[in-house]
């Protein structure tokens, strides 16, 4: 790879990443579906942040901006496959109405089949399963 210097200011990237993370957390904490925001808003936003950060690391820290060959030979096929997997898995998810009870539902102590949150409520009267969060 080329010579003695990186060819970009690592520090700048770093700062940007930092800010993005902060924003992302704020976003994730604010636009909860529970507070009436649409899931799309939450997830779309988060995904944008994540992808942006990923790209920064990928392009600069991992130098992909400067290595055409590897990018084209290796990195391009991978996402294609990822998409293949996901697209093939999705239809089955859409098929869930065939299930006796949705994914993730379990027996609660009384042997009823309930979903996770209800189960938490029954187990220890609160949805707060984790002290660390306050």
């Amino acid at each position, binding site marked *: 790879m080329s010579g003695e210097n990186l060819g970009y200011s690592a520090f700048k990237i770093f700062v940007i990443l930092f800010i993005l993370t902060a924003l992302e957390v704020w976003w994730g904490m604010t636009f909860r579906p529970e507070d009436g925001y649409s899931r799309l808003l939450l997830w779309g936003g988060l995904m944008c942040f994540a992808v942006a950060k990923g790209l920064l690391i990928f392009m600069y820290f991992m130098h992909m901006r400067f290595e055409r060959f590897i990018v084209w030979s290796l990195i391009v096929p991978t996402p294609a496959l990822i998409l293949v997997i996901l697209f093939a898995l999705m239809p089955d998810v859409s098929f869930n109405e*065939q*299930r*006796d*009870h949705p994914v993730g539902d379990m027996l609660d102590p009384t042997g009823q089949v309930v979903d996770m949150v209800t189960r938490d409520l029954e187990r220890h009267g609160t949805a707060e399963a984790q002290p660390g969060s306050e």
Partner: protein
Amino acid sequence: VPILGVYTFATAAEHGWWFPPNVATFGGDIDRLFYLILWMVGITFVVTELTLVWFVYRYSRQRQAKAAFTHGNHKLELLWTAVPAVLLLFIAFAQMDTWAKIKYERTFPEEGRYSRENPIAEVVASQFDWRVRYPGRDGRLGTVDDIENPFEFVVPMGEDVVFNLRARDVIHSFFVPEFRLKQDALPGHTIPVWFNAMQAGTYDLVCAELCGWGHYKMAGRVRVLPRADFEAWLAGLEEDWFSNGTEETE
């Protein structure tokens, strides 16, 4: 090899190494498709194998000093890319509507007595037996007055029969060779299945997905009765189900 191959296929029928007789409506389609492919594939098979044998024979007795020197021929390549392509596409499209007819829910029979909404029964597979639950007097499944009948699945003849397939423990598979019908029973899922049996009689119900040591003997039976007999049978079942007072407990 090819001669032998064709011969066995030709004579197979006499040896009874062939399909069990078909009794389901869509079974016919499946067999038709099967034979279609059998013919196309069979011809390809014979042709290719014969050329292979012939070439090996012919050119291993080659006298001239050197072999023909060629790196290929584009016209030929195109030819034998295009021809199979056409065949294959044909095969592929020939399948589609049958598949849709058998499996797609929106193409499920509606007009008949049974449909996706009110199936005739619920077939529950478990290690290593089959249980059939008919809706009781209230005509709905999953209620207390369901009637359970182990081992035997009795259906009316010549009607579109829709039933729900379930599994208690591991994956099983509902397979009736004579119906050409196979559907895995997924634990945690309720899978609607339909068929239409054209002949009265009793057929083996086979479990076609490995489900443990007893897989090989997880036999059930499907009995096809004319409508009247079916009604009678169901009534009788209902009778002794409630008479000896055993309540189905969920």
